[in-house]
């Protein structure tokens, strides 16, 4: 059986078991709706789900772009200036101990109920893995190659362009793939705490009205969005890191 068929077989088996359980038991749909009911709802409410999904997607994409820009600047500075790494590394690590739920109300208080606070929320949650991966990539470059570039009289910019940056690309993409898949968490938490649109907002609304089927439909759209972003990053990874076989990577 082909490798890329396996996830669909597994998913189909899971959904069929779920459907069977819902139909054979007396469980109420507001506790656990059957997958067929959720799929029907997705078809019926497609415009609503797409509108809120688009809002969340924009927050994730802009959050990712923002965090990537910040991560590239910071990782480069920390690599070039060891003093900067010494000064910033403890702060970066400590920042990861702050619960995102504690941060969300603050960002909303500072930036309002609009998209800005959710974009920043997504950026905050993915900034750390991208920065750490990129810095690790820069640092893993072989001494022999550094000696070669030194012998060629390459300046810092040329060494970065021809050696460190391409060398760190696989590390950067590994971090970015993890980042986009968790970016949704940041955006949705932001929407839960305070917003007027987005899948997080829709989930809160549906939950309050015991519309469990709509909650599941929102989760399904959010999952599809995360998979799409993951695949998009993988596509760019294949284009940019052509010298590494990424066929077997997740």
């Amino acid at each position, binding site marked *: 059986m082909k490798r890329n068929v396996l996830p669909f077989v597994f998913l189909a088996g899971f959904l069929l078991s779920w459907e069977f359980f819902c139909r054979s038991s007396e469980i109420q749909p507001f506790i656990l709706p059957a997958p067929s009911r959720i799929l029907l709802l997705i078809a019926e409410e497609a415009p609503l789900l797409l509108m809120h999904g688009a809002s969340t997607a924009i927050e994730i994409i802009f959050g990712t772009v923002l965090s990537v820009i910040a991560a590239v600047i910071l990782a480069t500075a920390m690599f070039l200036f060891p003093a900067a790494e010494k000064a910033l590394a403890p702060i970066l690590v400590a920042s990861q101990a702050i619960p995102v739920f504690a941060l969300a109300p603050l960002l909303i208080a500072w930036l309002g109920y609009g998209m800005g606070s959710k974009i920043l929320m997504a950026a905050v949650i993915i900034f750390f893995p991208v920065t750490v991966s990129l810095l690790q990539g820069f640092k893993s470059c072989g001494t*022999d190659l550094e000696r*070669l570039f030194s012998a060629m009289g*390459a300046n810092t910019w040329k060494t970065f362009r021809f050696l460190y940056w*391409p060398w760190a690309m696989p590390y950067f993409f590994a971090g970015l793939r993890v980042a986009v898949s968790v970016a949704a968490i940041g955006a949705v938490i932001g929407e839960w705490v305070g917003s007027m649109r987005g899948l997080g907002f829709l989930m809160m609304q549906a939950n309050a009205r015991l519309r469990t089927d709509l909650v599941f439909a929102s989760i399904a759209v959010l999952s599809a969005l995360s998979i799409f972003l993951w695949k998009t990053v993988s596509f760019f990874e294949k284009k940019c890191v052509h010298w590494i076989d990424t066929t077997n990577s997740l």
Partner: protein
Amino acid sequence: MIEVKNFTKSFHNRLVIGDFSFFAGEGTLTALLGPSGCGKSTFFDLLMGNISRDGGQLFLAGKEVPDLKNAAAFMAQKDLLLPWLTLRENALLPVSVKKTPSASDLREADELFEILGLGGTGDLYPRHVSGGMAQRCALARTILFRTPIVLLDEPFSAVDAITRQTLRSLLLQIRSNFRKTLLMITHDVEDALLLADSIIILSSAPMTAREKLVISTPKEKRSGDPFLQAKKEKILAMLQEKAS
């Protein structure tokens, strides 16, 4: 051409290179032969200015210089080709780090590829070629440094016997075509005997010049030559004597 006078280097109060001196004339190939770990690579790092020396002087064409940066090319035992660049781009790297390669640079690289038996492979990536071809590309890159001096750090230790044979003759061809002054560190006695004009036998801990042998034969050097065989036995005896 290159004169090293009384180089010394210590790491953590341990003398690694002690009062090391030698002279290599223009267009010659000098082999620095010594056991693994005797400090040969550290010596190259000192020459290239990658690490600072504790004492000693370095002269290039009679003029004192701090190091050989911008005057010497460097070739290591690994090919050190960048997998994201094609073979042509890899060979032209010493040019690319200074300026955008011109049409004549590209032509020169292609001509060099022809000489080295790499014709038509310029657009391939390192993963598409054999280890021997990659090492020949590394040799092309070394020439395109366009420096009068070439430092070779065990350049043939990671290749098979047939590739080694090819690379040896290519190195000699390049030396006569481009009139480079070559310094080669090696622990392979045969490499040193077949390629070098003079061999400096090194002792370890700390590294010092133990003896200098001038290898000159009127004819082309061959592996089974009785003259070279006698020299080989002498060198091996010296190295074994030191080891025991």
